[in-house]
């Protein structure tokens, strides 16, 4: 569906005239910027060094950061879920959970322990919202992870509800170690590259760095405002 544009002509004409030309240029080449400090920050670090930067940053953003091997992931995940008070849980629908060996945890272990787990299902529409709103834990996966700021990057799609990382009281984000990059610079470049390769742009990209917080009352930090009150990153050593 194509959208609409209203009042553009006169608005743009006014700007062109203030910029002393008769019309907007047909094409503007983005200049080579004179300075590029963003590429120098945290450059030439190994994946282990980037992980160390990420772990250190997590201590500054009230985020629990756990590193686990692929083999131990299911056990680690179960413990984190229990420590966070169990269900109900809402997870994205994502084949990577199977690839990470979490199928039996999700379909057997948790149900046996009476821990309710739902998977985001576009087929049932708004029912997802009712479930995610009551969920104690939301589980998502980071596609790109920024070491410098301790940021997980989540891309929405029909199987990846936006609200899974916002409405539940606690949030668990799985982070493949291979997804860690120095900073937002590399994420921005990756996103542009994907678009140039013909991928569709997600309608919502979330750069999430820790639980929600506010210092609006007398500048006193309170963790847990509208989004999750507790945040756990589980780093999977997939390298």
């Amino acid at each position, binding site marked *: *569906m194509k*959208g*609409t*544009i*209203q*009042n553009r002509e*006169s*608005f743009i004409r*006014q*700007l062109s005239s*203030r*910029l*002393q*030309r008769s*019309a*907007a*240029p047909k*094409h503007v080449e*983005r200049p080579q*910027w*004179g*300075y*590029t*400090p*963003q590429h120098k920050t945290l450059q030439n670090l190994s994946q282990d060094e980037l992980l160390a930067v990420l772990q250190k940053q997590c201590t500054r953003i009230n985020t629990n950061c756990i590193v686990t091997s692929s083999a131990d992931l299911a056990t680690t995940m179960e413990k984190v879920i229990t420590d966070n008070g169990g269900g109900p849980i809402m997870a994205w629908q994502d084949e990577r959970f199977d690839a990470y060996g979490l199928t039996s945890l999700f379909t057997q272990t948790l149900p046996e322990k009476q821990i309710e787990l739902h998977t*985001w299902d*576009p087929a049932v529409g708004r029912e*997802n919202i009712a479930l995610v709103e009551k969920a104690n834990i939301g589980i998502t996966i980071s596609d790109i992870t920024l070491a410098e700021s301790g940021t997980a990057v989540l891309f*929405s*799609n*029909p199987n990846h*509800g936006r*609200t899974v990382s916002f409405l539940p009281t606690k949030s668990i984000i799985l982070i493949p170690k291979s997804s860690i990059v120095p*900073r937002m*610079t590399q*994420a*921005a*470049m990756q996103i542009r590259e994907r*678009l140039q390769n013909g991928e*569709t742009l*997600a*309608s*919502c*990209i*979330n*750069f*999430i*760095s820790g639980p929600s*917080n*506010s*210092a*609006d*009352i*007398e*500048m*006193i930090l309170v963790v*847990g*405002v*509208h*989004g999750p009150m507790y945040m756990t990153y589980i780093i999977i050593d997939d390298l």
Partner: protein
Amino acid sequence: MPMKVGDEPFNNRVGEGIQNTFMRSAVSGAQDRLEKNRQLAVEELSNWEEWRSLGEEIRQHVLANLDYYLTQLSDQVAARGGHVFFAASAEDARAYIANVAKEKQAKKIVKSKSMVTEEIDLNHYLEKHVGCSVVETDLGEYILQLDDDLPSHIVAPALHRKKEQVQESFQRHHQYEGSERPEELTKHARKMLRDDYLTADIGITGCNFAVAETGSVCIVTNEGNADLSTALPKTQITVMGMERLVPTFEELEVLVNMLTRSAVGQKLPSYVTVLSGPRQEGDVDGPEEFHLVIVDNGRSEILGSEFQSILQCIRCGACANICPVYRHVGGHSYGSIYSGPIGAVLSPLLGGYDEYKELPFASTLCGACTDVCPVKIPLHELLHKHRQTIVEKEGRAPISERFLMSIFGMGSSSSGMYKFGSKVASSALKPLTKGDHISKGVGPLKNWTDIREFPAPKKERFRDWFDNRQKGDH
């Protein structure tokens, strides 16, 4: 004037600000903390001056090609199925948004913090003309809205409120029974607002930056309120000042990083959200309909003028956090939603000299604001330009300023007069002096001493002191 805050004249506002001791200690405490955090955050990037140069270069390039980038942005939004409305005035913007709300038969609107919607006074308009409720979801704004109070800081809007006042306000409006502890007050707001997100018909947001290449809007928060305001209601309306855009994700990245470091000293806030059009086919959450309202409201008159660089502003508030004047008078004294040095430059441009001619004079021109500005806006030079315009072209400096200037002109135009003046100042002002302060000034001093004391001239003149110092007496 929608941007205008209150009807009190400037001197009364300043007087109220100075006498509000809680506000003054809150502001100075916040300033110290925010500025210290900012310094730490920029020191971590060892080459901050390079970042500033890059930030400036990006902003200047966008402004020089604003007609091109806004065309590209609107094409991209429409290609994603969004609706773009170009609003020349505040009135146009309000009317369009009200129409959308009427069309949707909106009963409730949730809104995430936005300076431009404050500027166009959107909430009151919608309440009056559409009859729907508009709920501010940023915790600070939520607190202010309950008592129809106004923001006093760009990033910490409720800075002037005590926690006990918040408690009292929640008691009065919600029969709140909890304590004054911020954790508990916040939990209460969380509970109240949860229901609002789930039942709202429309979500309205501001826009920190739009991305021309992809037709995206980027919103940053620490609370996650912008995310819930856009993920749950069926319609999203984003309102942006027309200059708030970047060419691509690569420049977005640079400016978002500089914004949050400069504003609160964070590398990134908890949530940086990039939204592109309405939800995709098959998506369950996110808006079915997306509207982008691009607001001029006086900005295009600044473009191409000697004040153009003020449009580089990314609204971090670092200039207010370091300003010695803001520290003492607080945000409300500026009489505009835009306070601090940025407000003193921008408010007269958007709201006119009639309303805001005092603001450019409420500055020591110390230049601290210019030094911290992440996009290198020469703020104190722009304040000086305003003064020149007001005095030379408009011939309407504040009256005491004119008097002072003419006396100073007379007194300092010849060295004889200057020597005489500085020598007699101490004894001439003696009748007004109490200890080493003047508390009842006359003429140009009156406005000052109505509010606070003015140090009495020393018996020893500066030049004599300096001479003696040279001789090694001090």
